[in-house]
């Protein structure tokens, strides 16, 4: 700790930080633009100028940039100094010379950092009367608007997009006051994290395009803290609602998980809740609409008859638990695919195993050697990919410390370290979007990957000297020599590391997850400390659902019970079974069942097969909890009132206590194993300020008395929310008094998202009243070591069968997630179902990227994508919807296939449906060329 004096007052600060960060941490107001807590200082904007004084005798002082000056012990600083204040106002005056002053029509207005800083600087009179510089804007795709005239050239966009997120298609171009931030030509921004530009940009250059289409000012949005449903990471978000529709999702700061950034699936994927694909009323078998009362009667009759229940990884803990209560634990079945179910059982045992620790996203960023086995995290848990991209900078941090360059000197650290990176090893079947920062990539068929991973384990354990015997002579990807080299370099990196991290996931298959755990266990023993092991499940509540299901109650068992007639009725919640099991098994079961009740908020193949379909609420319409990959339960608050006719699953199911979330959570904690600490996620009602609830509407919310005047001119009574500490109101506890439920930060003089610093104990650190959720599982046991069985690994092929390819499924960030794929902006980024083949395989079929191929023996058509890193014996298939509109159930496809060119197509006729595809080995350029 160091002591500094700012304007005569003394503060205890961290000398490892810069003055700006420390002033903000102390709650002082000091304007800035280019500095960012995650991206450090570069000294570009000159906005944070302060005076520093040599000693008490020094009356003149020196003007310095606070962001570029260490907060060293004894520093005497003045923010209020006249010269410093005048300079800061001058900087605003400069920045504003070409700014269009179009705040009234700018999406950023009202939450604009430039507005805030302008007011804070005191600059309020325009002297500049010369010509303004104007720019041409670009079409950057479905996610972001581009309005370059508003730019103040702070360089934050390129520093985030290129330096932080690894993007390559956004750059600072031209120079002097013509500096331009854009792509080399119009086109969709390629980075999976592009949406963050809307939050990183301090003004309205990059704004949320789907939001613009039904724009509302920040202060008019009804908001509540929420949790993203896009994947198993559980990033914290703030959805905003107006007039009953979801308008946008923005990042909600969480010091351990997402920090300041979301992925584009999370930011733009939630708009499915507004679409016509919602199930909005109860329907019977004939598709006739039922009143709520009729529907409830029918449901009661089914329950009386006795039904089994099928849960869902995309339904909340409460919904799943209510179903379990209703049908009984014996009759409550997994809604997961067989592969995922098995993977989750293993994942749960690892979460309880004291040999490992499960890293937060923040901890992943600090790893100094990472091995990713099989899981394409950019497409399955994108926020993890962004964190791993930061982890390779651990080496830069180390070098900078050695050279005595403070870690916040961002440009200096990068210039010093150049290409020096901490090791990141990627074992995957095809290329990934992290390959550019990987120190080792091994692309091979799944069986060979498994063998290589085992070899890593054996080599680390130091036991068997002939570990190389594990590696097959003939792999269809890397040669044996290359594989051995990869194994060697991975082992060396993991052994040398202080904070090694092993990442795997259910998409990689349970066998690889077992090896991942085994490697982590070996490392734990080597280092006498639990090794970080991140096993990533597929969906937002995969873990919560799996914790409630008995291991033997698989989906297959449920389907068999129905088709055998052992059960005649089934209640399925928020689950489309055709995504979980082969179509034939699902159809047989649902046809055999007398009663099929489906509660869901979307129309799916399964709701269409229901004898009774009941509309439930989407994630933003009811308070509920989910359990992420770490076993961390998080509460997601209700943002909007639910549409009439719909009800939360737990309300439909009507079990005791279900009408009140807290009661249901209490019951769950008492009855369900592993959920004992669940009630801790509820905000403590007793600590609320004078018993006040937390308003969902800002104190500037407008139109309250008039917004529904088209329906009725009298001012309706405000909805009462007995279920939550939050209220559908403008009135209640002020954020400044209690921010334990913090949806949308705001502070006097700070209207933008930058106001989050006012709620942090120190900038970039924990929130003063952070609700981090609760880790449900405690580590105590050593789980049984299960030897992986390589024979069951899909994609293993018999080389004797000519032309036969092992099927390996790949994921796409836009498309593989069921819910977000319905979001209109995401739909524009969907690609056709495709099969990726190596260039020789494609050549042997006489086909090129864009051609349609048929899986022999089926009518399933897939578009061909030639990917250079694909092993020769593997067909990497992205299921989804084919160019012809057929929706492909991956589980219907055999493990080994042969492909032929579809008849009746012109050679090389490209499908437009691949233009939105972005993968690691540069297929996009092919698709783009085809488009032109």
């Amino acid at each position, binding site marked *: 700790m160091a002591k500094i004096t700012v304007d005569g007052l003394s503060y205890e600060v961290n000398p490892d930080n810069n003055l700006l960060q420390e002033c903000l941490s102390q709650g002082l107001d000091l304007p800035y633009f280019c500095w960012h807590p995650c991206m450090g200082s*570069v*000294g*570009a*904007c*000159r*906005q944070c*100028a302060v005076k520093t004084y040599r000693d008490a005798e020094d009356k003149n002082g*020196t*003007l*310095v940039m606070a962001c*570029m000056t260490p907060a060293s012990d004894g520093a005497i600083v003045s923010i209020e100094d006249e010269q410093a204040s005048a*300079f800061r106002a*001058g*900087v605003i005056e*400069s*920045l504003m*010379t*070409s700014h269009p002053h179009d705040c009234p029509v700018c999406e950023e207005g009202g939450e604009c950092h430039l507005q805030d800083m302008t007011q804070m600087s005191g600059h309020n009179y325009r*002297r*500049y009367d*010369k*010509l303004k*510089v104007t720019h041409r804007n670009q079409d950057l795709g479905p996610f972001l608007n581009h309005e370059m005239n508003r730019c*103040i*050239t702070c*360089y934050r966009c390129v520093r985030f997009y290129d330096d932080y997120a690894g993007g390559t298609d956004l750059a*600072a171009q*031209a*120079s*002097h*006051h*013509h*500096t331009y931030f854009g792509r080399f030509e119009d086109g969709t921004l390629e980075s999976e994290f592009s949406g963050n530009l809307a939050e990183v940009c301090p003004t309205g250059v990059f704004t949320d395009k789907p939001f613009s289409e039904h724009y509302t000012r920040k202060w008019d949005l009804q908001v509540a803290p929420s949790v993203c449903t896009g994947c198993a990471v559980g990033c914290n978000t703030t959805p905003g609602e107006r007039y009953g529709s979801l308008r946008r999702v923005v990042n909600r700061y969480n010091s351990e998980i997402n920090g300041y950034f979301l992925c584009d699936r999370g930011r733009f994927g939630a708009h499915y809740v507004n679409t016509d694909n919602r199930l909005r009323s109860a329907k019977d078998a004939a598709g006739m609409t039922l009143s709520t009362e009729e529907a409830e009667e029918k449901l009661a009759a089914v329950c009386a008859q006795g039904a089994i229940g099928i849960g869902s990884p995309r339904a909340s803990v409460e919904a799943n638990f209510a179903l379990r209560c209703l049908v009984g634990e014996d009759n409550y079945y997994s809604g997961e695919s067989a592969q995922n179910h098995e993977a989750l059982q293993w994942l749960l045992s690892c979460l309880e195993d004291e040999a490992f620790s499960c890293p937060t996203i923040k901890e992943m960023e600090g790893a100094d050697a990472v091995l990713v086995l099989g899981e394409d995290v950019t497409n399955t848990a994108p926020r993890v990919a962004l964190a791993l991209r930061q982890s390779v900078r651990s080496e830069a941090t180390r070098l900078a410390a050695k*050279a005595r*360059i403070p870690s916040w*000197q961002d*440009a*200096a650290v990068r*210039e*010093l*370290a*150049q290409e*020096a990176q901490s090791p990141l090893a990627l074992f995957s079947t095809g290329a990934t979007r992290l390959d550019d920062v990987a120190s080792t990539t091994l692309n091979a068929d799944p069986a060979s990957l498994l063998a290589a991973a085992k070899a890593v384990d054996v080599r680390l354990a130091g036991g068997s000297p002939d570990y190389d015997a594990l590696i097959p002579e003939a792999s269809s990807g890397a040669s044996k020599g290359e594989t051995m080299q990869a194994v060697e370099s991975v082992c060396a990196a993991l052994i040398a590391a202080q904070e090694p991290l092993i990442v795997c996931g259910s998409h990689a298959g349970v066998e690889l997850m077992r090896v991942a755990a085994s490697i982590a266990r070996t490392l734990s023993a080597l280092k006498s400390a639990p090794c970080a092991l991140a096993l990533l499940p597929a969906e937002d509540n995969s873990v919560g659902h799996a914790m409630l299901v008995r291991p033997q109650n698989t989906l297959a068992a449920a389907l068999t019970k129905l088709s055998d007639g052992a059960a005649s009725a089934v209640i399925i919640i928020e689950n489309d079974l055709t995504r979980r099991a082969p179509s034939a098994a699902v159809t047989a079961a649902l046809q055999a069942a007398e009663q099929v009740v489906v509660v869901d908020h979307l129309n799916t193949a399964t709701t269409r097969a229901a004898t009774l379909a009941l509309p439930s609420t989407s994630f933003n319409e009811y308070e509920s909890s989910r359990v992420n990959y770490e076993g961390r339960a998080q509460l997601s608050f209700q943002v909007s009132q639910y549409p009439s006719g719909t009800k939360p699953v737990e309300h439909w199911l009507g079990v005791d206590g279900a009408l009140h979330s807290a009661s249901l959570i209490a019951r769950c904690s008492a009855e369900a194993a592993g959920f004992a600490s669940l009630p801790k996620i509820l905000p403590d009602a007793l600590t609320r300020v004078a018993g006040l609830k937390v308003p969902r509407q800002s104190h500037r919310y407008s139109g309250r008395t008039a917004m529904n005047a088209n329906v009725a001119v009298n001012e309706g009574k405000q909805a009462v929310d007995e279920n939550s500490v939050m209220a559908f109101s403008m009135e209640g506890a002020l954020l400044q008094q209690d921010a334990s439920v913090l949806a949308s930060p705001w502070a006097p003089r700070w209207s933008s998202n930058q106001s989050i610093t006012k709620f942090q104990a120190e900038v970039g650190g924990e929130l003063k009243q952070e609700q981090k959720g609760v880790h449900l599982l405690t580590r105590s046991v050593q789980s049984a070591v299960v030897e992986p069985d390589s024979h069951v690994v899909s994609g293993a092929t018999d080389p004797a069968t000519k032309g036969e390819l092992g099927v390996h499924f790949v994921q796409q960030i836009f498309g593989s997630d069921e819910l977000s794929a319905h979001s209109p902006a995401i739909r524009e980024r969907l690609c056709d179902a495709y099969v990726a083949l190596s260039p020789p395989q494609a050549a042997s079929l006489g086909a090129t990227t864009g051609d349609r191929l048929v899986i022999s023996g089926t009518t399933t058509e897939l578009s061909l994508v030639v990917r250079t890193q694909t092993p020769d014996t593997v067909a990497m298939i992205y299921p989804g919807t084919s160019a012809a509109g057929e929706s492909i159930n991956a589980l219907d496809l055999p493990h080994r296939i042969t492909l032929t060119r579809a008849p009746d197509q012109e050679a090389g006729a490209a499908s437009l449906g691949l233009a939105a595809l972005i993968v690691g080995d540069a297929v996009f350029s092919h698709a783009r060329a085809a488009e032109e």
Partner: protein
Amino acid sequence: MSAHAEQRPLTKNIDLKRGPLALKEYEAAGGYAGPRAIAAGLQPNEVLERIKESGLKGRGGAGFPTGLKWSFVPQGPDSEQQKYLVVNADEMEPGTFKDRLLMEGDPHLLIEGMIIAAYTIQASRAFIFLRGEYLLAEKRLAQAIAEARAAGHLGENVFGTGFAFDIVLHTSAGRYICGEETALLNALEGKRANPRAKPPFPQVSGLWGKPTIVNNVETLCNLPGIIANGVEWYQSLGSGGDFGTKLFGVSGRVKTPGCWELPFGVSIREVIEGYGGGMQEGYRLKAFLPGGGSTDFLTPDHLDTPLTYGAIGELGSRLATGTMILLDDQTCPVGMIGNLMKFFAHESCGFCTPCRDGLPWVDAIFRDLEEGKGAHKDIAILQDHVGYLGPGKTFCALAPGATAPLGSGLKLFADEFETHANSGCPYH
């Protein structure tokens, strides 16, 4: 002509009537004595001490002691072994053409200086960052480098010393900001030519993050003489606290504009009236920038000042590159300053706010003043910018350099600015 011309260690081989000396001729004239002294056993720390003692200051403009700069390069077994020498040959300062003379006139002198510098800091590789428009210099340097390499003066075993050293000639794509040493490094790495923050200084983390010395062409050309003739000889040249000789230049309406090697301490009058031949008939000297486009105006009252860093500094200006730009009584001072402002505004890299957005405003005001569209408030705005763009406020020295002619000009030509604000430029 004065007696100063006797000792011209920098330009003794230069004869504009013929091309530069080829390697053999250069060696016959006593060239490459420095590397030979190294081959005879002179150690890097001995060279460093000698350069420190000589009092050599950087000739790029800032006048920082060269030996001191070199001493910041971390040495020893624990230090980063890969070190670089970078020659700043991106001569773009308005009015400055001294490095061009050296490179076109005697390229081997620069190469010899580079070998000495590289040996001292133990850099195995050097880059000459050459202004792209210097086509003749490029041709002659490339030829000289090839000659030196063929003779074994460059390569794996320089002069048989066991020291490995080679030179890469890089021609710039052309921005004034590349003359800023850290922007130059970024440009050399293939990045945007934005300057870097200091600290860390290039001596610690420079080109590709390695310890790097960036020296000006003329600075390096001083080294062979110091090594060959010794510190005493070097210090006997020059007076007034600065040692050695310097290339001084004069441009503007003198009879014989040009560039001459003279010892420090020669008076301004001697250069302008002696070497420059005095003002052309019918023109009177009104003011001048003593060291290129980014120095403060001096007036005829200052003509008897000796040309040293200290003496010019005391007048509130800078010796900088030592190449004067003269303003006569029939050229509009507002137009002259406006022309410089246009240059600086255009050459701003666009990184920091005051420079990027302040200079274009200044430039726009000058255009208005020129066209009679200006107003008195504009002059106040110009005055504000002198402080706003000053040292310490911007990221690098470009904008503070621009404020030198602007600030001093506003003071010196206050009446003329008034006239412009009232009724446009009277000189048309």
